[in-house]
């Protein structure tokens, strides 16, 4: 078999020379975006909202950038890194001008490698793993949303302000979660909070009853519930059955907002505390316009996934448009250090050193909706300035 491989490889060599010789550059008549988001599986709800937010960003500029129409192809990554890589590879083979996505950090990290190899700009608006703009940072990838470090900082500050004594940690079992648990286990005691137990739960677990019961019986007065995707609704709904929110101070990262409240229902939602990456009540012209456009198109308020996706996409497209040239490298140079004073979350600065956006962090608590329209609304409990959360660039 090895004989035929080497012979055929020689033939391949010849043909490759021929093929390579007649590769020609083609004129750009569209700006092609590959939207790689999970539309099914545990993260399906995230991806769908990301798609909606980004769609508003594209539509509000008339579907054009640099004077050419934007062509966006949304690919369902099925909450699977395997599938995402397959679709990303195909998208890059198609010759796209930028990649948008993904939701899962694992997948984003894998896509980053491809984007770097192919030199395609890559905008991340959800994945929070520190490595994306830390150890694994790349020239071609930017994150316009929060990272884990700032979310954890907000969570720790909130826990401290609540005067909690004992904390139980329920953590989604994936790489970010494992890192997060380590951070919480070291940092909480420094704030005078004892960690009485940590439980790792596989993503997609359908029954949280036992785990939540363990937390309840641990004697802890606080619960750090860090779960993702559909597991948020599952755990909170099952928590509602045993009055979890009344017995413990439950807090988490992106654990609760108005959309989530509709899925979980009032009973399981009220009193749940969570970081909020974006909130539709933000008082600015751009945000009012965005919320109005979103409500008109989709008939509901934009959630954090949609808001962050809109923000990243519109920021990037504005920057690309301002360069006036069809040159990926020029876009990247322009985005580095770019300042967004009119983002839907207030001021954002794209750090040139690590491609992480500097921004505020919010922490909210779910309360019953005074108007009675929604099960709950989020009340901003704490707000943290960028200076408190970020070390300056070196």
């Amino acid at each position, binding site marked *: 078999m090895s004989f*035929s491989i080497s012979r055929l490889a*020689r033939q391949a060599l010849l043909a490759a020379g021929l093929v390579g010789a007649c590769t020609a550059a083609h004129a750009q008549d569209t700006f092609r975006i590959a939207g790689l988001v999970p539309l099914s599986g545990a993260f399906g709800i995230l991806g769908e909202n990301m798609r909606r937010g980004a769609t508003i960003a594209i539509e509000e500029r008339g579907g054009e950038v640099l004077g050419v129409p934007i062509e966006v192809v949304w690919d369902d990554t099925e909450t699977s890194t395997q599938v995402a*890589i397959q679709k990303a590879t195909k*998208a890059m083979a*198609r010759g796209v001008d930028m990649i948008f996505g993904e939701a899962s950090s694992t997948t984003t990290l*894998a896509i980053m*490698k491809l984007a770097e190899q192919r030199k395609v700009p890559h905008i991340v608006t959800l994945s929070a793993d520190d490595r994306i703009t830390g150890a694994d940072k790349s020239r071609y990838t930017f994150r316009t949303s929060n990272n884990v470090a700032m979310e954890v900082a907000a969570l720790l500050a909130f826990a401290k302000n609540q005067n909690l004594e004992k904390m139980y940690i329920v953590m989604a079992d994936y790489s970010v979660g494992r890192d997060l648990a380590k951070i919480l286990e070291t940092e909480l005691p420094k704030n005078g909070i004892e960690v009485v137990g940590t439980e790792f739960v596989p993503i997609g677990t359908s029954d949280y009853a036992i785990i939540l019961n363990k937390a309840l019986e641990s004697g802890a007065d606080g619960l750090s519930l860090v779960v993702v995707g559909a597991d948020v609704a599952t755990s909170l709904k099952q928590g509602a059955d045993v009055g979890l929110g009344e017995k413990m101070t439950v807090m988490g990262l992106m654990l609760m907002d108005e959309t989530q409240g509709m899925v979980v229902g009032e009973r399981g939602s009220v009193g749940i505390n969570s970081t909020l990456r974006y909130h539709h009540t933000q008082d600015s012209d751009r945000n009012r316009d965005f919320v109005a456009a979103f409500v008109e198109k989709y008939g509901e308020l934009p959630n954090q996934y949609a808001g962050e996706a809109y923000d990243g996409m519109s920021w990037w497209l504005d920057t690309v448009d301002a360069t006036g040239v069809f040159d990926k490298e020029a876009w990247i140079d322009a985005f580095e250090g770019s300042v967004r004073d009119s983002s839907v979350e207030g001021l954002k600065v794209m750090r040139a050193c690590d491609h992480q956006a500097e921004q505020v962090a919010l922490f909210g608590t779910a309360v019953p909706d005074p108007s009675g329209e929604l099960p709950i609304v989020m009340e901003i409990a704490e707000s943290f300035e960028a200076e408190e959360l970020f070390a300056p660039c070196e």
Partner: protein
Amino acid sequence: MTRFWTRDFLIALGLCVLLLAAPLVTRNESVFFLLSLIVIWSIFALAFDFCFGRGGILSFGHAAFFALGAYGYTWATMDLGLGFGAGLAMAILCGAVFAVIVGLVGQRVTGLYFALLTLMLAQLLAIIMVTRLRRFTGGDDGIAGVPRPMFGGIDFFETVNFFWLIAAILLAVVVTMHVLNRSPLGQAIAGLKQNEERARQIGFNTARLRLAVLSISGAYSGLAGALLGALLMYVSPQLLSWKVSGDVLIMALLGGTGTLAGPILGVTLFELLKEVLSSYTEYWYGILGITFILCTIFLPKGVVSLLLGRDKSR
């Protein structure tokens, strides 16, 4: 089985040649990516069908051999720093060794129970690889940056070049499998499928024959897994999912088992249907399902039966 140039073999060769000739017609990179997937899954489907269609051994756990091949290649090239050839050899070895283990464990189990056993062993392997061997497998995150080959000054990171390479490997797989099927071992395996009892009476060691079938199938599956890892430059335990085993079974049966052309046709049809349907309708998945159902009812011998007709010499 007297002629060497059976119609089935000729069709399979024709399909390989068609694939190899694709770069002459188009230079669209995403087409090559699709074709690369077809080539790799064809190898996997042929490997599966060697077990099911030739050896009569049903397996729901072929994903294990496939994934171990991908990981074997990754370990060899990334951790041990070995070359492409050695990586493939490692993949083949990993696939074959696990297949032998499955065969030995399930020595006394046959039929549907063996199929269920393979499923459970694959699941067990998947869980152990995700939770216990996190260090070697990257856990749920998988391992990114799996290398493609480097030799002869060719840039195999170009989809086209890589496609040529794997299409040539597919051709080699088809030829070696055909030679194997016609060899005394292949004839014995055919006898095993037709009537295990009789094969035993004639004096074959059927237990050893079953092991041979499994290890050969595992080896080819491992090869396919390695190539997929190299194509995607990424491996993860998701390769071990029972859906992977289900997909390869569907593809092989759709195309027609017990043939060389069938699995290749099945994979081609599956991937093309997926590609074409998904570009026209959001509901391609369901349409694919209906297509399967119709094919199973009306073309139980697979799509290949349209080409082979009642050709007995296949």
